[in-house]
């Protein structure tokens, strides 16, 4: 954020001249270069329009305007039913900011004050995965977009829609200070272009209207991704001419791309004939309907499901959920079906990170592989998140959620009594295996049960014991706590889990959890965030945002006092070189001093307790915390934990 240091006295001639003609401008010679600035401003003021001239004759310069371009922009944004705009204020979009809170009444969208653009986009990321639609992010010219970049990349990799507006001042002669020069760019979108689906630079209000609706439409079409509009300050701040003809374009969403009937039918044939098929779900369920569609297919086939949990795809306690036995099932499968699997190749291979990086297939050589993945419809070159090339037998570039009903129907058409009977037998065996798997997880969770620092298994179990009767939503990734919630809790509904970063960019979890909690607020859900310490320290100001906007959220710290993933990476190098095995903590730990997360949260108006190291104290602390969250406020419990 940086205030514009000089008031603009003539930021309105573009539209005014369009409305009133350009005769005066054309007749007025340009001021000499050595003319004093004050003279140039005065002369420019005289140039603007007949209306201004009339005012000038009556003794005053035109300093106010009834309706500006940014008001119309709000009309367009409101037409898209966008509930919130997350933003750290910036002068390059001051016009739109003011129109949102005054002309728009600060409702639909409501301004959510963020302390960092990475937090703005991170919140939008979490929000969209709960609500199924984007919110708006406004970011300052150049510096704001640079701050936002990592979070945009995460959303891009995670196939999440975000509508981003970045400020800019296109006309170099209208930049009145060195600050405005520093915050303007010839191609402001360039910093994000590699990882947004589409960007544009509207040069008129009708152009803005069409591009905004187009951007929204593109962002919401699978594969969903962020989109970016660069907004010229002049376009926001100039008055709208009285005779301007402006209209808000109609939004007609694209239908999600479905798989072609031939490929779908062939996939169904293989699945019905298979003796040991397995289904792997990545980002299969975009919406609650996606979860229901997957249940239908899985139960029709009685096929084991391995849920990679990039979204909440499949109930964790369903007998067909065989996630914990995934490796063995892939190893013996004769048909492998992947639904929006981010890394199909990596799923069917095992790799080894030693000096010689090796890998081998864990699938049977004769296994048939099928992939339905909308990511293949939109691949960019530079950033390599598209993963290694998978040699699949049937590759369907389509949205899995939209394709599942036709696949299930094709499967049903091929069923006969014999196959139904075989499927029933398979389902019965899988139900037994599921129960055994759950028991194994519980047995494993009992190890280090009374340990201090507190085990991640106990942290998850203590939470589950108290939220299981609530309408809860886990709004954080479970990866860094050894996936214990996914192994021990009964996930059933789509909003109960939102996956992880997408691009593995740390700093995602804290803002995404607040954004998801913002979406959950109107439904009265209990949002739960298991928060890594390193992740929170990227932009802890999002705690203030949660307090300021009264966003109810239970944050339980997974405080292992380290950038633990990197600690393990440095340990690998030390071991490989057989030196300094006890020095990998240098540069990778967050201690000496330990961060007092309780004070950090309290300083921003968040109720907090901790540090909690005694596992017996955890349960009662969670009870107290839930009471505060139910009153509509955020809470942070600082829990000192085992590494993973």
């Amino acid at each position, binding site marked *: 954020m940086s205030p514009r240091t000089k008031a603009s006295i003539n930021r309105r001639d573009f539209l005014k001249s369009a409305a009133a003609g350009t005769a005066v401008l054309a007749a007025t010679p340009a001021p000499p270069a050595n003319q004093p600035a004050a003279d140039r401003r005065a002369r420019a003021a005289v140039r603007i329009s007949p209306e201004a001239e009339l005012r000038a004759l009556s003794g005053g310069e035109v300093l106010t305007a009834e309706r500006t371009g940014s008001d119309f922009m709000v009309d367009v944004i409101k037409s898209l039913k966008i509930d919130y705009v997350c933003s750290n204020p910036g002068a390059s979009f001051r016009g739109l900011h003011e129109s949102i809170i005054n002309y728009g009444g600060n409702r639909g969208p409501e301004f959510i004050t963020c302390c960092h653009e990475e937090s703005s986009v991170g919140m939008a990321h979490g929000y969209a995965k709960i609500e199924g639609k984007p919110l708006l992010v406004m970011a300052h010219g150049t510096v704001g977009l640079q701050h936002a970049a990592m979070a945009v990349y995460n959303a891009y990799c995670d196939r999440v829609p975000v509508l981003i507006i970045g400020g800019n001042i296109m006309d170099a002669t209208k930049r009145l200070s060195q600050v405005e020069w520093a915050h303007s760019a010839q191609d402001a979108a360039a910093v994000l272009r590699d990882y947004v689906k589409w960007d544009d630079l509207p040069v008129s209000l009708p152009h803005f209207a069409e591009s905004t609706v187009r951007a929204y439409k593109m962002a919401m079409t699978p594969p969903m991704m962020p989109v970016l509009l660069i907004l010229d300050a002049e376009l926001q701040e100039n008055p709208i001419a009285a005779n301007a003809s402006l209209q808000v374009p109609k939004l007609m969403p694209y239908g999600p791309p479905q798989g072609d009937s031939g490929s779908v039918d062939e996939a169904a044939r293989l699945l019905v004939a298979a003796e040991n098929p397995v289904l792997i779900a990545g980002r299969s369920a975009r919406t609650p309907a996606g979860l229901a569609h997957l249940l239908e297919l899985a139960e029709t086939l009685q096929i084991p499901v391995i849920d990679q949990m990039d979204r909440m795809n499949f109930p964790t306690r369903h007998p067909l959920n065989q996630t914990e036995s995934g490796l063995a099932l892939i*190893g013996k499968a004769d048909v492998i079906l992947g639904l929006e699997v981010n890394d199909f190749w990596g799923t069917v291979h095992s790799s080894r990170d030693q000096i010689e990086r090796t890998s081998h297939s864990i699938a049977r050589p004769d296994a048939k592989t099928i992939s339905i993945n909308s990511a293949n419809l939109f691949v960019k070159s530079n950033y390599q998140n598209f993963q290694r090339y998978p040699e699949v037998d049937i590759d369907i570039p389509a949205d899995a959620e939209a394709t599942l009903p036709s696949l299930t129907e094709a499967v049903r058409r091929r069923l006969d009594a014999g196959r139904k009977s075989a499927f029933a037998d398979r389902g019965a065996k899988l139900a037994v295996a599921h129960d055994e798997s759950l*028991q194994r997880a519980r047995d494993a969770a009992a190890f*280090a049960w009374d340990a201090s620092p507190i085990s991640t298994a106990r942290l998850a179990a203590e939470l589950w014991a108290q939220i299981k009767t609530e309408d809860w939503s886990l709004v954080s990734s479970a990866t860094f706590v050894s*996936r214990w919630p996914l192994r021990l809790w009964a996930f059933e509904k789509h909003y109960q889990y939102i996956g992880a970063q997408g691009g593995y960019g740390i700093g995602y979890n804290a803002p995404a959890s607040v954004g998801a909690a913002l979406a959950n607020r109107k439904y009265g859900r209990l949002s739960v965030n298991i928060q890594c310490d390193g992740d929170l320290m990227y932009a802890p100001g999002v705690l203030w945002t949660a307090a300021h906007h009264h966003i109810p959220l239970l944050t339980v710290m997974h405080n292992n006092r380290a950038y633990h993933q990197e*600690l393990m990476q440095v340990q690998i190098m*030390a071991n490989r070189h057989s030196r300094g095995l006890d020095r990998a903590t240098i540069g990778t730990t967050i201690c000496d001093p330990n961060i007092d997360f309780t004070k950090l949260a309290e300083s921003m108006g968040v109720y907090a307790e901790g540090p909690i190291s005694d596992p017996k104290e955890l349960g009662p602390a969670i009870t107290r915390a839930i009471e505060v969250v139910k009153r509509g406020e955020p809470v942070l419990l600082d829990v000192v934990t085992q590494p993973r």
Partner: protein
Amino acid sequence: MGHFTSTTWKAFLTAALIIAAVLALIPDANAQSRKDAQSGKKVFEKVGCFRCHGSAGEGMPQTGKEAGSPKIAATKLSLRDFLESVRKPKGQMPPFGAKQVSDEELSDVYAFLESAASQPKPELPSSASSKDGEHLYTAFGCYECHGYQGQGSVQTGGSRIGPPQIPYSGFLAYIRQPAGEMPPYASKALSDAQLADIYAFLQSRAQAAPSKAIPQLNQ
């Protein structure tokens, strides 16, 4: 005992030659003629068998994404069945064709596995100190993947090692030459005596209480 006529002798010789020729075509018989354990060890390492089965074929417990592998040292399979299990494996083991490893080489591997099983296994020294081991376990980063109590983690891939699920000899061998993702601990960086202390520490970790006795784990 009678004597052979020349016709009988010729017939005998012919039959013997035929049998010899047939035997030469049978991998099992040909392989049995070699059995060089030293060469087998080299093949075992070159082909990468150790990555899944351990440096002496002792097998691996399941760890995270790695499914584990059976012990193959002192295998009870016949050589013929051993060859068959490598060419057409069941389960998750990838098949190894003759272009990757010949029957002759596999017979040497078989011999190596037999000899490995007969070698004396290191025992945990009585001097091993659990207290020193606790310090070493943390200082040398074992906790990073396995947790401070050796409880393991599916995220790191570190298996549960507290208390240990494998004997000291296997522990020692695995740490020196790990098959999966685990970084190797060479003896120049971590001595056998220090490893013994760490093992003693892990042995001192309590078994978990039955999960059914913990209310939070039954919901």
